[in-house]
């Protein structure tokens, strides 16, 4: 970085600005208003470059587009409020094709060619795991928004973080009490026969058992399957709840066929909205879901009790009350996950400012500053809700929403507590060398 020396003074002045900002944000949630706080000296240093590993093509493309929109909105909000440590933020986007091999190359490209300060934004687990070694070798902090349990499993490395979205193990654990108390005691799981499904297969039975309910059947469906009816006879007749977490383009088929199979005589349904992200809940064939329940990270539909921060976030990203793009009701967002991009970028901002981050030479300091974070208060920077962060396993834990499909909308009926989702750490990244 060219202006190392001049920068030192700048960061001092931003410290006071940050404190001021925090007060304003907490007070009215107005910090997002463009031009509200702007310091002219902020423009004088080179921008902080954030490498955004985006699923523009391949199976993750529907998510990638919304991750980009959300991140662009967050970057705009951060820049309008003075940037990070007084420096502008710039997103550098590369497509990873939702492919782990290409993902690793893209991380290398960010580190060595674009010389970005960090890498950010990956969703699909196999891309995260495939890219993690490249991030570790290049010693570039890698902030993912994936919801997978891979980061918290401590099987990756010290440079990988997931501070913006709760991992799936925690989500499952925090859902179980509600399912057992409200949906039913005898649960049949239907899940894709690959990693995302395995998290549910492995963690749900124990979580339900602790609540006095049980999983009576587990039906794994191969990832290549495009029709599902032939698996439904395996659902035991005494099933009270079908817990479904199918993902991918065939998921509408899954729901429609379930509807054809059961008609109106169906057990309770509980699903993860992952199945229907970017899909209109009012698509033909989905009437069957009326009255069923879904997990949502952040609610797709605007709720009556939405906080000012949530409203400001939705406006900034450009989604309407139905969770679709403003001006195009058919363009449904991936609301339950993409908030994680927004929040992760604010975590990066906080950690960089804490570390007094100046450039790539400070990456190790950034890692340590991130590990030192403990909690994130609900507010404009964390519109989904409050979170705690475990620096040893690089994972955050937040609240989860359970929503009911009612009149073609998703209505939040239960919010879990952070404590519901906490578990014993499986390892400790901080013991690894930097």
């Amino acid at each position, binding site marked *: 970085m060219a202006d190392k020396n001049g920068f030192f003074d700048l960061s001092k002045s931003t410290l006071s600005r940050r404190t001021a900002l925090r007060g304003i944000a907490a007070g009215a949630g107005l910090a997002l208003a463009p031009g509200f706080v702007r310091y002219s000296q902020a423009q004088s240093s080179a921008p902080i470059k954030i490498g955004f590993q985006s699923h523009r093509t391949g199976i993750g493309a529907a998510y990638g587009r919304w991750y980009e929109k959300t991140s662009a909105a967050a970057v705009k909000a951060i820049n309008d409020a003075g940037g990070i440590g007084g420096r502008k933020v710039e997103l550098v986007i590369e497509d990873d094709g939702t492919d782990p091999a290409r993902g690793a190359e893209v991380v290398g490209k960010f580190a060595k060619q674009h010389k970005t300060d960090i890498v950010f934004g990956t969703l699909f687990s196999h891309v995260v795991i495939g890219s993690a070694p490249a991030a570790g070798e290049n010693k570039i902090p890698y902030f993912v928004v994936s919801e997978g349990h891979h980061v918290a499993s401590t099987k990756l490395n010290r440079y990988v973080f997931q501070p913006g979205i709760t991992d799936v193990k925690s989500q499952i654990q925090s859902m179980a009490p509600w399912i057992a108390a409200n949906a039913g005691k005898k649960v049949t799981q239907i899940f894709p026969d690959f990693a995302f499904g395995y998290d549910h297969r492995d963690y749900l039975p124990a979580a339900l058992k602790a609540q006095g309910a049980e999983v009576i059947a587990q039906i*794994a469906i191969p990832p290549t399957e495009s029709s599902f009816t032939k698996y439904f006879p395996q659902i035991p007749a005494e099933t009270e709840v079908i817990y479904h977490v199918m993902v991918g383009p065939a998921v509408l088929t899954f729901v429609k066929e379930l509807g054809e199979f059961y008609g109106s005589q169906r057990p309770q349904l509980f699903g993860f909205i992952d199945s229907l992200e970017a899909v209109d809940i009012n698509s033909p064939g989905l009437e069957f879901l009326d009255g069923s329940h879904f997990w949502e990270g952040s609610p797709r539909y605007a709720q009556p009790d939405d906080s000012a921060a949530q409203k400001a976030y939705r406006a900034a990203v450009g989604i309407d009350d139905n969770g679709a793009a403003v001006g195009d009701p058919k363009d449904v967002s991936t609301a339950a996950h993409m908030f994680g991009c927004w929040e992760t970028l604010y975590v990066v901002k906080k950690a960089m400012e804490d570390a007094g981050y100046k450039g790539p030479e400070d990456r190790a300091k950034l890692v340590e500053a991130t590990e030192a974070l403990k909690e994130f208060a609900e507010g404009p920077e964390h519109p989904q809700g409050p979170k705690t962060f475990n620096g040893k396993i690089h994972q955050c834990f937040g609240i989860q929403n359970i929503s009911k499909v009612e009149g073609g909308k998703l209505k939040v009926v239960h919010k879990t507590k952070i404590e519901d989702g906490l578990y014993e750490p499986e390892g400790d990244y901080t013991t690894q060398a930097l």
Partner: protein
Amino acid sequence: MHFGPHLLLAALEGLVTSAVLALTALGLSLVFGVMRIVNVAHGEFFMLGAVLAWAISTAISGHPAIGFVAALVIAPLLVGLVAFLAEWLVLRRLNYNPEGTIVATIGMLYIIQQLALTFYGPEARPVEPPFNYRILLPWFGYSGYKLSVIAASAVLLVITWLVLTRTKIGLIMRATQYDRETAQAFGIPVERVYAGVFAIGAMLAAIAAVLIVPISQAHYLMGQDPLLLSFIVVIIGGLGSLRGTVVAAILIGLSDGIVSVFFSPTLAKIIATLVVAMVLVFRPQGLFGTTPR
């Protein structure tokens, strides 16, 4: 559920898969058999059919059946046109060199996929079926539309068979398939036959896609599985054998469904694939193929 109904359900599901597979594979078989080229972009013509069906049916208001019928007519024609142009602009210039056409059709695959992603988007989108009728069996409910897909596919297969065996066009195609040089010597315009065959092959895939799209949605990556399965069907059935293609499609569609009744699904797929591969190892000419001359 008891074993009997379970098996019935698996068989019904298998038949739907077979019906769509038979049409798609027949298209590939024609291209493969007559032109002797491997069309890697065949699955993309399938995808294009589904995507166009979505575009057409959403553009037309009124009863869903009107949009669906319009899609069933227009989408295959458009796909046929695209295929015709591709043949005319690229494959012909390659002189149907087998290796060159593989690279060229991989290129087409990328182009069609990217265009679909750019103009249609990454989402899976449903098309409303022309009618919603749930057949209530004593043990479970079943989609009436799915049964009609089986029927429609059967009718289309019979029509194709009649065209191939009873008309002059069919005769010309078979002659070209049998021996290109001799056909040319007898004044058959081989180049026009090739262009036609390539277009018809793509249209058959598109028709199959329009039929399936009310059941499984249109998505820009949906072409890969039909491509692989069609290849398998064509080879198992025996190159250029219409009867073989249909029998193989039913065999593969049913085996996939029924084996999954007995084993865990991924294991079922492993076993089914191994069995079919072994059939081919010990009968490389396919079930109904004759040994190559």
